[in-house]
């Protein structure tokens, strides 16, 4: 091995070996004193009988400040986004109520009894499916992330944007989605060999629609009906949404009402005017559905205050639209040296992966970076390299390395490196 697994640093800035926490010994000690009644020194929740929780459980009121950050656009009623507060969350599954949302004319209130999914176009038998009918189909469950391609777009600004991990990267969430494989329904309709694309359309007041390559629809696309085990939430597309693992969020059409099988793309408004990526020569990438490899650090992060020198855990999220995360490197000296982080839990394809690394902070200024690699050997680019690919103001598909600067006062802010 040759690698040190002690608490000796393995890279600059005090980064420790990723298994240092695991190999450290633990000592427990306890003392007790005799009392006539042990309740005298107990907190009230140990000495008071209480009742059951509500029919639908809620977070503790002590944790009630953990909410999505809603950002309405001034003068733009009905359009906007709310972001997942990653700085307050752990693990990889996003609670349904904290899943990010982006809508283009509000969240519709759809009566499931009056909602139908129509599949037509280049098919032998155009078909209509009700929610009740879909409930009888064989289903699949997949833990998959959804990310808006505008996520983290604030980092293209000349000055580093100051905000929490959720404000800056919260157009990203991960759920256990359950539903019917789209290939099952397309097979039932009988796809014409001339077909190559599918137009997916929502039943929202924007009639949001996107063109998707047919092969993706036949591959791992799902008509999702459940999110983390319960009916999909209105903000995520109740009663049904299209799930296209690894594709930009906008194409995962919510409130899905229609799939038109076509020979070519439809060139809908949201795949031409929006969600296209301006290049330096004035042309633009279109149908850039794939999302890249990416990571960011959730702790420490903006809004947190480090309470003095000592050992901390650096933790964050990594993912890739190409499949699995292979490795995450962390730097505590602004990128001069790197250490490999531990990847916690199972590494699922097109899902979020949690990374962790012990860090002995010496109390001085430090710049923390994370850099993800995926199984296709793709690596997160630097911000400069990312910016050089695109024209001015182009912020879709931002996946560059991000940095937090920790000050000697313990405050954390965003910096460009």
């Amino acid at each position, binding site marked *: 091995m040759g690698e040190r697994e002690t608490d000796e640093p393995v890279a600059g800035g005090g980064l420790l070996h990723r298994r240092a926490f695991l190999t450290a010994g633990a000592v427990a000690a306890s003392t007790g004193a005799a009392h006539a009644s042990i309740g005298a020194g107990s907190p009230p929740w140990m000495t008071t009988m209480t009742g059951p929780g509500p029919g639908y459980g809620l977070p503790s009121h002590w944790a009630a400040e953990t909410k999505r950050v809603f950002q309405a656009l*001034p*003068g*733009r*009623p009905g*359009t906007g986004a709310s972001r997942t507060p990653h700085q307050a969350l752990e693990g990889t599954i996003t609670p349904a109520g904290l899943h990010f949302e982006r809508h283009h*004319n509000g969240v519709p209130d759809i009566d499931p009894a009056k909602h139908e999914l*129509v*599949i037509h176009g280049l098919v*032998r038998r*155009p*078909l*209509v*499916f009700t929610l009740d*009918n*879909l409930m*009888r*189909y064989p289903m699949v469950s997949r833990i998959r992330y959804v990310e808006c391609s505008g996520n983290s777009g604030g980092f293209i600004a000349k000055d580093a944007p100051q905000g929490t991990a959720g404000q800056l990267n919260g157009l990203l969430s991960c759920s256990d989605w359950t539903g019917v*494989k789209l*290939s*099952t329904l397309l*097979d*039932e*309709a*009988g796809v014409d*060999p001339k077909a190559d694309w599918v*137009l997916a*359309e929502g039943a929202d*007041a*924007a*009639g949001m*629609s996107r063109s998707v*390559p*047919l*092969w993706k629809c*036949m591959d791992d696309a799902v008509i999702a009906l459940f999110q983390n085990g319960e009916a999909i939430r209105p903000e995520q597309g109740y009663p049904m949404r299209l799930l296209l693992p690894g594709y930009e969020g906008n194409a995962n059409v919510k409130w899905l009402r*229609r799939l*038109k099988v*076509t020979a*070519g793309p*439809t*060139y*809908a*408004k949201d795949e*031409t*005017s929006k969600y*296209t990526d*301006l*290049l330096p*020569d*004035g*042309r*633009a*990438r*279109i*149908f850039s*559905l*794939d999302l890249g490899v990416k990571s960011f650090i959730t702790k420490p992060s903006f809004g947190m205050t480090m309470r003095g020198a000592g050992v901390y855990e650096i933790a964050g999220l990594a993912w890739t639209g190409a499949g699995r995360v292979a490795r995450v490197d962390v730097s505590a000296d602004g990128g001069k040296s790197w250490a490999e982080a531990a990847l916690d839990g199972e590494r699922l394809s097109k899902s979020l992966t949690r990374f962790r690394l012990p860090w002995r902070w010496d109390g001085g200024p430090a710049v923390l970076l994370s850099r993800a690699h995926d199984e296709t050997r793709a690596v997160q680019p630097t911000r400069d390299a990312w910016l050089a690919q695109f*024209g*001015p*103001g182009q912020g879709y598909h931002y996946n560059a390395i991000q940095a937090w600067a920790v000050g000697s006062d313990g405050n954390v802010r965003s910096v460009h490196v």
Partner: protein
Amino acid sequence: MSERPFSGHPGESRDPGFFRSVVRVAKTWVPASAGMTGMVAIPLLALAAAPPSPGLGRPATPAEIAAVDISIPPSGAGLPAGSGSAVQGAAIFSEKCQSCHGAAGAGGPMDRLTGGVGSLATPTPVKTVASYWPYATTVFDYIRRAMPLTAPQSLTDDETYALTAYLLSVDGIVAKDAVLDAASLPKVAMPNRGGFVDVSPKKPR
């Protein structure tokens, strides 16, 4: 390019059969092995067989499809009857659109729709309908399905043709007195028609 298997409706071409796995048969051509000449067809059984489907899709009637098939591709297929002029569109625009999109679509508070033609490769690119959108059919499609934001799907087909004509007339893409309909709209040459690079994901091999 290999031919995609054409799978029929379970009720028509195969017996889905409870508890019996249905396998899809794909045909592929493989090079002949030594001692054989030419090519030989080998049927391959898909290993990831689909489970039996209940086949509950109800046939959609032509009327049901027509009621929801509102998307308009670049060919113009599906464009409705009717027409509208840029002159009519100017009046509708000032009444229903200007408060969000500014005079003549110059923008504010919502998206700027006009101007900016030729700016995309400059340090200050301006993306508008005129400067950026590749197809006029998209303008018709989007206005008809989603505009105005406060009353989507309230415009008539004639009003939608008129608004499309007006917006495109501001930058001279169509004439100031242009009339658009199902025949003329798909023929409009948008300035940035050739400005896109298709990077659509390809099926992994």
